[in-house]
């Protein structure tokens, strides 16, 4: 009963001076919006990474050639091709491996009629479609027959197909890759960024055998640039990495005290790095939020002190007719908390608006979750209690006689 009354009074006091209340609230609004956005960005980055992994294949590792450490001159990583298609096949038959695809890759000029583009061309096997979640928008994927016969066929990324063919059907058309003719047999449906090709929409996939004879010179007839391997499950990724390392050391006859001539890159680690960047960004926002909450809180303390002085007579009247010091304390404390909580609600609404604006651009998804809303509300309440307590206590300590004399 008393509390309902105190809340009603707090809102009446806020509305008595709307401009001042609004300006006071601004710091808290910005602070709370920052905190909510911080949490939304943290969640958003995690979701973004999960989505990328889901689109481009999850539980993947990349096995790259590395410079032999026991060779005198160190060469750039990847410039020596120690891996072969046989390595890929052996990796593929490991128990922990769901699939493995050997890759060759180069940048080539792709031309069709007058249209041309510089794109990444990857020579690979049909396994790659499976382990990297590649879906066909049109036509068919590469087949084992294409590999065996080194067919001059190509599967195009969606964007590249649109660039070259506009609205015409690319299937069956002949394009030129580095002035060699290839027949388009399929167009991918995937969008997004891939870890090794960049934009998946711009890629050209050809049989690895064809790439070797027509496009990419390799040190040996069986060399590959790298191998992409997929674990059977997320839990098996680390086992798979160990299995691959053991297998390749054995196959490459590397002695126990020599270093590997290959490198296994775990994309889960990349995801972790992405999350770390996200955390850093979130931390920066959290810091801004914390600073504006403190500054906003000081603003509230200041305004509450002014308010206590302005309402000295009112305090005197209330005390004369029976308000206990604790009643006065609660009145001013609840008023400060109400200002903060209303600011918090506005801050949450503001962050939702900003999140919606970011979402509308389509590059990144921000969701303001219940957790963020709850944390923000509690936080704003806490700021109110912390900075409202001193002015409220001061009001409650006033002497009724002095207050009634105050003009």
């Amino acid at each position: 009963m008393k509390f309902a009354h105190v809340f009603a009074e707090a809102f009446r006091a806020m509305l008595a001076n709307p401009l001042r209340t609004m300006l006071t609230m601004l710091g808290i609004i910005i602070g709370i919006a920052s905190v909510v956005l911080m949490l939304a960005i943290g969640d958003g980055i995690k979701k973004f990474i999960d989505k990328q992994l889901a689109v481009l294949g999850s539980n993947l590792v990349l096995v790259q050639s590395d410079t032999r450490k026991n060779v005198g001159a160190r060469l750039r990583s990847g410039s020596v091709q120690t891996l072969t298609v046989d390595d890929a096949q052996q990796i593929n038959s490991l128990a922990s491996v769901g699939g493995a695809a050997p890759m060759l890759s180069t940048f080539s000029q792709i031309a069709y009629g007058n249209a041309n583009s510089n794109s990444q061309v990857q020579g690979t096997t049909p396994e790659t479609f499976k382990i990297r979640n590649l879906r066909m928008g049109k036509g068919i994927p590469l087949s084992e027959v294409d590999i065996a016969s080194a067919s001059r066929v190509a599967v195009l990324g969606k964007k590249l197909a649109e660039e070259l063919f506009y609205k015409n059907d690319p299937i069956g058309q002949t394009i030129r890759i580095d002035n060699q003719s290839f027949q388009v047999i399929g167009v991918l449906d995937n969008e997004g960024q891939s870890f090794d090709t960049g934009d998946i929409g711009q890629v050209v996939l050809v049989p690895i055998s064809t790439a070797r004879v027509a496009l990419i010179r390799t040190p040996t007839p069986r060399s590959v640039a790298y191998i992409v391997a997929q674990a059977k499950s997320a839990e098996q990724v680390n086992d798979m990495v160990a299995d691959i390392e053991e297998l390749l050391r054995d196959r490459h006859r590397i002695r126990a005290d020599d270093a590997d001539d290959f490198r296994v890159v775990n994309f889960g680690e990349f995801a972790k790095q992405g999350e770390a960047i996200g955390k850093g960004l979130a931390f920066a926002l959290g810091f801004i939020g914390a600073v504006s909450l403190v500054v906003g809180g000081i603003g509230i303390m200041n305004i509450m002190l002014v308010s206590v002085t302005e309402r000295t007579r009112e305090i005197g009247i209330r005390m004369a007719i029976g308000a206990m010091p604790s009643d006065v304390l609660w009145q001013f404390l609840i008023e400060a908390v109400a200002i903060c909580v209303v600011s918090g609600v506005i801050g949450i609404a503001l962050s939702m608006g900003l999140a919606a604006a970011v979402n509308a651009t389509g590059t990144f998804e921000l969701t303001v979750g219940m957790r963020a809303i709850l944390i923000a509300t509690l936080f704003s309440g806490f700021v109110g209690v912390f900075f409202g307590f001193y002015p409220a206590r001061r009001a409650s300590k006033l002497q009724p006689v002095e207050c009634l004399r105050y003009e």
Partner: protein
Amino acid sequence: MTASPSRAPSTLLEVHDVRKSYVTNLVSTPVLHGINFSMLRGDFVAIMGQSGSGKSTLMNILGCLDTPTSGNYRLNDREVASLSRAELAVLRNQTIGFVFQSFNLLKRMTIQDNVALPLIYAGVSRGEARKRASEQLAKVGLGEYGQRQPNQLSGGQQQRVAIARALVADPPLILADEPTGNLDTKTSEEIMALLTMLNRERGQSIILVTHEPDIAAYASRLIRLKDGLILFDGPAAEGLHQMRIESSEALV
């Protein structure tokens, strides 16, 4: 609150050797030098005195807004001098209804809520408090003004509201500090008629602090203060007569 006619009216308050000094910069300034009087329930007492006489200090002590430096003050069978701030607040809430010179209604609050406020502080529910506030407003003739704001009312009406607020918790004592100081003669008469009616018909005990003899004349008993001591304590008519003689002597 009607005084029972079957037995003699009991004592409402008793002031015994009350002294008050204000300490500023280690210098103690005595204001009250030992005040003694008692008041029966149903009495109507006017306290007069010039500025500096200790009138306001005595009123603050009687109103439990301040405590004496020494001496005893018993109000409604409770010793006031030793109470804490919170206990004093409860005592004021239950025992005293204040009527001030400047009305002292709270702005931005309806008339009804102003009158209901003492009940809210007493812990009465909002609905019940508002209901009783409306009844009390009707009794002072302002039943239709409950939803107005204080600044929409005339001075006389505001003072009636203040009286309604003072009466709403049914306190044994009304303490009116210069209740007509901000009002014209005609409105003053109306307010004094209302207070007199409350005293006569409902046996309401009233202490009236004033400097105007015309207003003090409504009371039945007069206490005059001078330099922190009681100069006169007796029937109002006699005291006022004595004052007129004093002032005519001063003119001569």
